[in-house]
């Protein structure tokens, strides 16, 4: 499944880059992300609790930030495993200044397998879009709070 999109964060690209790579901010803003424990430079063990109405599960996995080139780009690699199957995401994230704001583009691929994949890709992408929007809304709130 292709993942791509473009969002605006009301902050400079330096600030936006810092927010999106700060494990504490991510734990606060990413729906379902409970804990990120550093395991090495740019790599974290992740505990996720995904809840989509009736479908709920605890997922464990790793999150790595690779090819980091602050504040312009990095690559996000996520692997997770849980009762419904596995999820792996590999996506590049780019930051470009757009006036007072940072324009964040992401593009990559997500692979979903196991029982959860039998729900059908269309529903998974609908849910993924919803969660991604929530995540960026939360990050935008953090950016505004950091300004004040």
């Amino acid at each position: 499944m292709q993942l791509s999109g473009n969002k605006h964060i009301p902050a400079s690209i330096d600030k936006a880059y810092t927010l999106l790579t700060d494990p504490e901010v991510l734990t606060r803003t990413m729906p379902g992300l409970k804990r990120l424990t550093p395991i090495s430079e740019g790599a974290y063990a992740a505990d996720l609790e995904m809840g989509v109405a009736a479908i709920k599960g605890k997922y464990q996995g790793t999150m790595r930030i690779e090819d980091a080139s602050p504040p312009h780009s990095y690559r996000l690699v996520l692997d997770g495993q849980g009762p419904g199957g596995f999820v792996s995401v590999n996506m590049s994230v780019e930051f470009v200044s757009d006036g007072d704001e940072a324009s964040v583009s992401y593009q990559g691929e997500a692979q979903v397998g196991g029982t959860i994949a039998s729900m059908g890709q269309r529903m998974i992408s609908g849910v993924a879009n919803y969660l991604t929007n929530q995540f960026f809304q939360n990050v935008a709130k953090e950016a505004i709070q950091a300004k004040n």
Partner: protein
Amino acid sequence: MYTAPFEYRRADTVEQAIGWLANDPENSKVLAGGHSLLPLMKLVLAQPQVLIDIGRITALKGIRIEGDDVQIGAFTTYREIVESPEVNEFCPLLAQAAQTVGDVQVRNRGTIGGSLCHADPQADMPAAVLALDAELLIEGPSGQRTQSIDGFFLAPFITSLAPGEILTAVKIPKLPAGAHTTYLKRPHPASGYPLVGVGIWLTVHDQVIDNGHIGITGIADLPFRARHLEDFLKGRLLDAATIAQAGPLAADDANLDDDPYKKNLLQVYVTRALSQFGESFAAKGLNGKS
């Protein structure tokens, strides 16, 4: 297939169910007919720790007229809806959609509230309740609220219902007298779920469309109202030329991922659904009740 272990509780009142739900809203689930939730639990996709059965709460059952609305308890089964004289008189579209859900067992056990809260984007009922402008009565720890069906579905399987809240009833405004209704779906050959489901009501005078609403389910990532299409139809002659122009407009309100098959399927089913009215008028006279 076995479910993960869970605790089962049977509530006698809505207050009791809300109280139990408040103990651990994230890990509790309300059990209505169970025909969507239990299969998910058997696949271990859903693992609620507490199941709160609302099936014995009499306040949640039944259909009655409240002024200009038909009020349907959340724990009212598809079968009760199909057989209800009130529904068939004042909002027959709801019965037409309920009649096509699943099989006899599902219609005997499954409920309207369960279907709406589960929010499967391929369920039948959303097309009808969207077209009918339903209002949802919701109760939670902080009291009662009403919510329009518009805006209730946020994403597949996600609604605006907060974790501690329970849907108690669905209020459907009576249709204008003489409204024509239809629900037409293309069922998936294996599951029976709609690949596309089109729910329509129209009022027509002297072959001219006065008013009408169209709800569509199954084909996009969310059920939706085809508002562009509704606007186009108002004031036009209900004839072959209008129907031919109308078909493609349903896609304006949907996210179909630029899929040409879905686009075509949607157009074909909207066209067929509207053509049914043409046929029923030809058979029964244009201003007659279908």
